[in-house]
């Protein structure tokens, strides 16, 4: 099982209270994780990736195993620790304070 941690607002949209778990067949990549996430929670379509371009929305970043994967190509394999479920895939909203 792949574990995904969503920002609070997206947890509210998806009506989940904690991290979500996804079953992915094949390579575990940004694209396959987000495809599975949107299939399981279709209300999240368009909130993480643009509907048309499928590009990451600019105020969101992807992290795993304390590394920033935001700028990696979407088909790059994620770390084994993510694929095995040991570590979560983190979707983080840019911090805006002030």
């Amino acid at each position, binding site marked *: 099982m792949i574990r995904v941690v969503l920002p609070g*607002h997206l947890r*509210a949209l998806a009506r989940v209270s904690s991290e979500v778990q996804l079953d992915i067949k094949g390579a575990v990549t940004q694209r396959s994780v987000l495809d599975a996430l949107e299939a399981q929670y*279709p*209300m999240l379509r368009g909130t993480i990736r643009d509907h048309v371009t499928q590009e990451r929305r600019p105020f969101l970043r992807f992290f795993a195993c304390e590394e920033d994967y935001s700028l990696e190509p979407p088909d790059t394999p994620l770390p084994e620790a993510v694929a095995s479920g040991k570590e979560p895939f983190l979707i983080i909203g840019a911090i805006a304070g002030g």
Partner: protein
Amino acid sequence: MSGVRVLVGTRKGAFVLTSDGKRGKWEVSSPHFAGWEMYHLKGSPTDPNRIYASQTSGWFGQIIQRSDDGGKTWIQPGTPPGEQTGPGGVPKGESNKFVYDTSAETGKPLTTHQFYDGKQHPWEFKRVWHLEPSPTDPDTVYAGVEDAALFRSTDGGKNWKELAGLRGHGTGPRWQPGAGGMCLHTIILDPSDPKRIYIAISAAGAFRTDDGGKTWKPINKGLYSQYIPEPTAEVGHCVHHVAMNPSRPGVLFMQKHWDVMRSDNAGDSWKEVSGDLPTDFGFVIDVHAHEPETIYVVPIKSDGEHFPLDGKLRVYRSKTGGNEWEALTKGLPQSNCYVNVLRDAMAVDSLDKCGVYFGTTGGQVYGSADAGDSWTPIVEHLPAVLSVEVQTLP
């Protein structure tokens, strides 16, 4: 007894205010969609339990929400809880999918519009500013979006299709964003003619279709905007809001960037009716539910200082369709008030006497149960109010 439901969109959530027909005591809901920008909520005229809401975020984009129980619970159309996916895991609807129609059959090429710096800029969808439910079908609703375009759903908000004739009118390269973005913020459906729709865009102007949205024409004759190179241009005017009394659909009232205007011929021409207003800059304008010559505005000091003149929050009412105005101050702060009232933040109910409501960027929602003669704050400490709509309940 009849009642009133006031739908308030704010920078940090939506609130539903309810009262009986006396409009003296109010219940204020907890925030819906807390933390999200709620640009607009509006109820269906034919089914008061059906409410549409535009939920937006700079992080997560656009969401459309719908309530079928008068605002108690909400769903994203097409993805109700417990029934989230269709065959193969695909959503049954993509209620937040607003894609400009560039198809050869029905669409128009996605061209460019003028940007703040005068350069051409590609059309980019950002958010829904205004939702306008059909007066006859609760499943049909129109959405005015930024960058300016008009969309329609005929399945309760599940799927959206652009009425591309507007964006493809040909003047698009001369449209430009106002300070708030290039938004289509006003949609008026003519109750006497289902094929006639009025819309307004900042800063392009007002447009009308007489064929259900296939073709459009600018209706800006008579507008004068000294801040654009050609003050009487066909397009480029910063129209802030347009209002109409449904009993007299050919008569329109407009609050432009500066100037209050009226048209007696469905927008074919306009004349200024600012008259004796202390300043004719402002955002909101609305019409009394039963007296079609009684109109309301909230004058704002200037385009550089978005707050009331002299720190006095005053609604101005004209009972003569403009030109002659009276200040309505009873119950409103008359010193040290520096809030703004945004373009979609005023509405009227259809009770007798007509109720008038408006919200401020300071988080107050004021109501009047006597057509503006006196005002009471319904709630005073909300986030900045973006929109106010009213449902008169049976």
